[in-house]
Structures are given as structure tokens and as C-alpha cells.
């Protein structure tokens, strides 16, 4: 797997523009010999992998394979679970996410998350978009916040649909629109990495397509890590794919290779639909 990881990214010129001095490590996030467990139950063992900056990585695998727990570890969403233990490390730009110098709140600002079910807050559409911006004091005052709201709603393609009802409840929007609103909210705080936990599994096919095409426009400015049960989705949008099975990272490589020329028998069975 090591040699696959170090393949040059196809979007390198743009990445160079984002990081002119070349000081950032090529991997935006990296897990090093990571072990995860809840109490006595081991979830994942010995995952060592790097996420390439500015690309989309899909995490696939059957239910219970540990991929969601892995994803939620990347912005420390599991930390408050009392029985959660980890061994090894996760690095963001070369620094441990658990290092004492690392502030949890700013970590989460840099590593955002989109959930399985759209979860707009019980406040107006506009307030939803700027909720994180407000919390972090990034923008202040009505004017600035309105600018942020419009900018982000335009970015996710929701502006025309909601511009006349920014003060309305977000729950009047369709499921797909709600998920795009949550996406706008996550983008508004300016993350480097966005974690997506089956973001379209609660949506209809048309909304799924809208969200997917939105996600594709977000690289290379952003690095996306997406857990999905939808193999077609992984195939369509991901640059790299990781296959998890039974608490292990079985295979990692360019999406095309994972789907068309898998090296491991378990991967082959899974992507061909013989195991689910």
C-alpha cells in the first residue's frame, strides 16, 4: 500500500497555488498505527494511512467494519464517549490532533463534518449558515454575517432557492436542501478537511446527485473524506478509496484500481457485491 499512497496527485498545480512555499505535508491528515476501541471491544487495529491534500477519499466497507468510528475519530467526536480508547496517533498537517497544544474547538473548525441526516439547527436559514461563524467570532455584525450567508449559500447552489426566505425555518426545505444548508454551515467556518458520514443516505437520488456534484466542486481547496455505503457514489466522486473490513484497513488505492483491479480477495468480493 505504501507505494500507492505516494503517487503524485493529479491536481498538483492547484495545490501548489494553495501552498506556494510547499511547507505543508503532502498528506493533510495521517493516521499512524491507529487502534480504536470502545471498552473491551476493539473497533479498528493498526490503521496507517495518509489522506492526500485536496482530494476526495471514500471509506467503504460493510456495516460494523469500523469506518464510521474511524471517520469520527478524525475530528475527535468519539472523545466524549467514556469507554473510547485510542492507540497510535492521528496527525493534521503533521501535528497530533490530541497534542496538548491543539485546541479542540479550532481542530473542529479546521476539520468539519457533515452527518448522515441533515441536522439544521432550530433557527432561521440565515442563522444556520452563520452559526459556526458566530460561535468562532469569525465575522461580526449583521452586514458581515449577511455577506457570509449569501456567499456560502451561493457556493452550495442554494441561494436562489432560499434568498427570499432567509428568515424562515430550515425545516421547510427539502431533505436535500437541508443537507446543502448544513454543507454551507460547515463551509462557512473555513475548514481544510470535511468529513462526511454517509451524507446522502437519507436523500432521494436527485438530491444525492445535487450534493455529489457540489462535493466535486470543492476540491482541491478542500480535502474530503467520505464514508459511504453507496459504491456507485464512491466510484463517481472519490479520487482514492479505502476498503475497511472487520476492523482492519484492507486496501487503499486510486478509486479506479480498487473497483476495477482490487488486490485483495475481500475487496474484490465487496466491490462486486458478493459481500455486503
Amino acid at each position, binding site marked *: 500500500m505504501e507505494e500507492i499512497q505516494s503517487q503524485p496527485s493529479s491536481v498538483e498545480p492547484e495545490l501548489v497555488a494553495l501552498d506556494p512555499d510547499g511547507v505543508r505535508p503532502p498528506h493533510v491528515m495521517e493516521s499512524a498505527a491507529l487502534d480504536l476501541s470502545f*471498552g473491551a471491544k476493539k473497533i479498528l487495529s493498526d490503521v496507517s494511512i495518509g489522506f492526500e491534500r485536496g482530494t476526495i477519499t471514500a471509506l467503504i466497507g460493510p456495516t460494523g467494519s469500523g469506518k464510521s468510528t474511524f471517520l469520527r475519530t478524525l475530528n475527535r467526536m468519539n472523545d466524549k464517549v467514556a*469507554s473510547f480508547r485510542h492507540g497510535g496517533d492521528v496527525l493534521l498537517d503533521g501535528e497530533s490532533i490530541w497534542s496538548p497544544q491543539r485546541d479542540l*474547538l479550532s481542530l473542529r*473548525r479546521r476539520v468539519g463534518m457533515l452527518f448522515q441526516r441533515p441536522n439544521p*439547527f432550530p*433557527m432561521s436559514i440565515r442563522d444556520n449558515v452563520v452559526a459556526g461563524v458566530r*460561535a468562532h467570532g469569525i465575522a461580526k455584525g449583521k452586514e458581515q454575517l449577511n455577506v457570509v450567508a449569501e456567499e456560502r449559500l451561493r457556493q452550495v447552489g442554494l441561494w436562489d432557492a432560499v434568498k427570499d426566505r432567509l428568515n424562515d*425555518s430550515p*425545516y421547510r426545505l427539502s431533505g436535500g436542501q437541508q443537507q446543502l444548508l448544513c454543507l454551507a454551515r460547515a463551509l462557512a467556518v473555513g475548514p481544510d478537511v470535511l468529513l462526511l458520514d454517509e451524507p446522502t443516505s437519507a436523500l432521494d437520488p436527485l438530491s444525492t446527485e445535487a450534493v455529489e456534484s457540489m462535493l466535486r466542486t470543492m476540491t482541491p481547496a478542500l480535502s474530503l473524506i467520505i464514508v459511504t455505503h453507496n459504491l456507485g457514489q464512491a466510484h463517481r466522486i472519490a479520487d482514492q478509496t479505502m476498503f475497511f473490513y472487520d476492523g482492519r484497513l484492507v486496501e487503499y488505492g486510486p478509486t479506479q484500481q480498487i473497483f476495477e483491479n482490487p488486490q485483495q480477495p475481500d475487496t474484490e468480493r465487496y466491490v462486486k457485491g458478493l459481500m455486503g
Partner: protein
Amino acid sequence: MAIIDDVGRGTGWRRKKALGFRALTYVSLIFVVGPALLLMFNVASQAIPHWSWSVLTTVPLGNGGGLENAILGTLVIMLGVLLLGGTTGVLAGIFLAEFVSVNSKGKERGGILRASIDVLAGFPSIVLGYVGYVALAVGLHWGFSLLGALIVLSLMVVPYITKATETALRQVPTNYREGAEALGMRMGYGLRKVTLRTALPGIVTGLLLAESITVGETAPLLYTAGISNGLPNWQLIHQPIGYLTYYVWTDWNQPFPSLHYLSYDASLILLVMIFTLLIGSRLLVTRSQRHSESGH
């Protein structure tokens, strides 16, 4: 095996069962609504024919006068309980729902607080009043006092507020909390802006219940607040205070029609207060929930 029986007996039997069940729900409805309506009708029909607006603006005088002292006293007590008991109860509820940690065996801490609240809820109000009298009026030499009354009444209503707050917070979808966390909101910030806002209807219902209990209590007030025909003056101790329920009971037991009228007036004013409270809190909740999942 009820299902199989139903199949054997056919739809007629099932329809009868459904009908019977529905009839039972109506009967229980009558048991609740009937006495409430009867009470309101009785109070209104006795109070309104003799109603005089001067009741609101004069203090008791001989066999007549008004209830200004008691109205203001009850309002002051309500406000005080809202501040003292409301704050304590809501904070205890937030503690139980949000901050109680789970120990290494997966068991929740906070058992002592929970047990204390249950004990408090089961205490007869007159006992609580007597404890207040012995400890505060006599023990601390406060005499009859507003503060003593507020402490005892607050202790009485804290369990309701705490339970309501905890339940309401626990019903807030995990979704919201995680969304707030994932955005990097501080816990207190997310609690304020997202979780508490969602739980508000439940919390307000608890506060409303608490205020209704406060308005209607008599026994613990006799022991702690004493009674005063003078207007309340915000003095916390060494100063008894008047309240409406006192006059409902005492004036009715006097042999003078003029005092009977006052007794009914006091009841009517209590009812109006409770209704105002109800409507006010509903408006508040509706306004705060205009962006909620259920409120649109």
C-alpha cells in the same frame, strides 16, 4: 392471543372494543374537564356580580376593603420563586441532563442529586412549611418573612422544574448536539444557542407548573410568610407578607357577606393570574419555536 380471538369474533367485536376504549377516554376527559369548568363557573358566578375594581387598589380594612396587598404579595412571591426556584431547578436539570458523567463501569453519577429531588417531591407541603418555620423563622430569627417563604416554596417546586428541564433536554435530538460540536462550538455556547432553545417548551411547561403550585399554595406560607395587611415593601426578612390564598380561606370563614365576596374575588384573581401565565408562556414558546422542527 387477543389477536386470534379478535379474528374469531370478527370485525363486530373489534369495532365494539374500539368503541369501548374511546368511551373510556371520553369518561376520563369528563373527570378532568368537568371539575375544572365547574370550579371556574362557580367562582366567576359568585365573584362577578359583586365585583368592584377598588378591590385591586385598596388594602383590607375591617370587614371589607380590597386585596391590593395580597395581589402584590402573590406577584412578588411568584417572581421570587421564578428567580430562586426557577434558576435552581433549571440549573439542576441542565446538570443532570448534560454534565452528569458516566463512571468507568458505565453507570451515571448524580444519584445523590436525583434521590434528593425525589425525596423533596414527595414531601407534604405543610411539613416543608413547618421545617421552614423552625429553621428560618425561629432558628435564624427571621420571623415571618418573604425570604423564608421563597426558600420553602422554591424547595417545593424545584423537583418539578428539574424533572421537566432534564426530560426536555434529553429529548433534544443527538443530531443537534453533534452538529454544534462538529462546528467547534464551546459546550456552553452550543447548549445556549441550540440545545436549550429546542428544549424551551418543556422547560417552560415545568416553570408554569411550578408557578401554578406557587400561586395556589397556602400551608407553607402560613408558616413562613405569616400574613400582612400592608403592602409588600421588598424587605426580605422580619416582615410578613400578604398573599391571595390566605384570604380565600380566612375570609370565607368569617360571618360577614362582605368578606365572602372578597374570598371569591381572591379566587377569581388567582384564576385570572393562572390564565394570564398560561397564555403568556404559550406566546413565548410559540415565538421561540418558530424555527423549530415541530413549530412550522
